């Protein structure tokens, strides 16, 4: 026991990324797929902050700030697309929405 090495933080980040990736590939509900994308963005943030702490520079924290802002914008547009999807097609299953033009 003692201080935690850098590799453990990176391993936590990659584990969270893998779980988000699995949600993206395995689940068919568009909302859960979207939550997986949010989790993958958080895993990237974890890596940014771990290297920021290890190198004692704060540029990684600024990058994490911008990732959070982009995630907020992405969530707003993505959920609007889901509302439009349910209104027009009455489904949330990503397998049923595979045409570009309807």
């Amino acid at each position, binding site marked *: *026991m*003692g*201080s*935690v*090495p*850098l*590799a*453990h*933080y*990176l*391993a*936590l980040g990659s*584990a*969270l990324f*893998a*779980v988000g*990736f*699995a*949600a993206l*590939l*395995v*689940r068919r*509900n568009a*909302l*859960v797929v979207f*939550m997986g994308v*949010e*989790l993958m963005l*958080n895993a990237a*943030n*974890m890596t940014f*902050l*771990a290297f*920021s*702490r*290890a190198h*004692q520079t*704060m*540029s990684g*924290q*600024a990058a*994490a*700030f*911008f990732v*959070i*802002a*982009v*995630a*907020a*914008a992405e*969530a*707003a*547009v993505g*959920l*609007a697309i*889901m*509302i*439009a999807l349910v*209104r027009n097609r009455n489904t*949330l299953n990503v397998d049923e929405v595979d045409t570009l033009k309807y």
Partner: protein
Amino acid sequence: MTEAMLFYPMALVAIGGALGMIASRNPVHGAMYLVLSFFGIASVYVLLAAELIAALQIIVYAGAIMVLFVFVIMLLNLNEDDLERPRLTPGTIFGGAAALAFWMISFMVFSDLPDQTMPTELPEGFGQVASVGRLIFGPFIVPFESTSILLLVAMVGAIVVAKPRI
């Protein structure tokens, strides 16, 4: 001493919440598990001396974004038939195997890394509001202002996409 005592339980909370998100059939339960996972991730951010980002994680992610998720789930008014049934197809098996393979490869890479310990001494005010703000409004001013345009475009786009008739 305290870092390891806090890191491993909080990492477990983060990964457990994420796995609960995948395993739950109802999207509302999945969203609640994801909030739990975000709280675990935020406490790991505090250990990484990123107090401001940890606070933003709670306010923006666990607060704003997840409330938006739950709000949309309620708005869509899903019934039992809309929930997906767990089934095993080549797609899901391959997807799960690909995610597992990604995790195992990255784990092998990280276990080969030299055992680099985190520096104990940090610059004054590292990760706090004043110093991160000075960085964002100094060298990162152009991306920061671009973010405001991005949020404006996202807001207009969300209204245009979700509105039945413009």
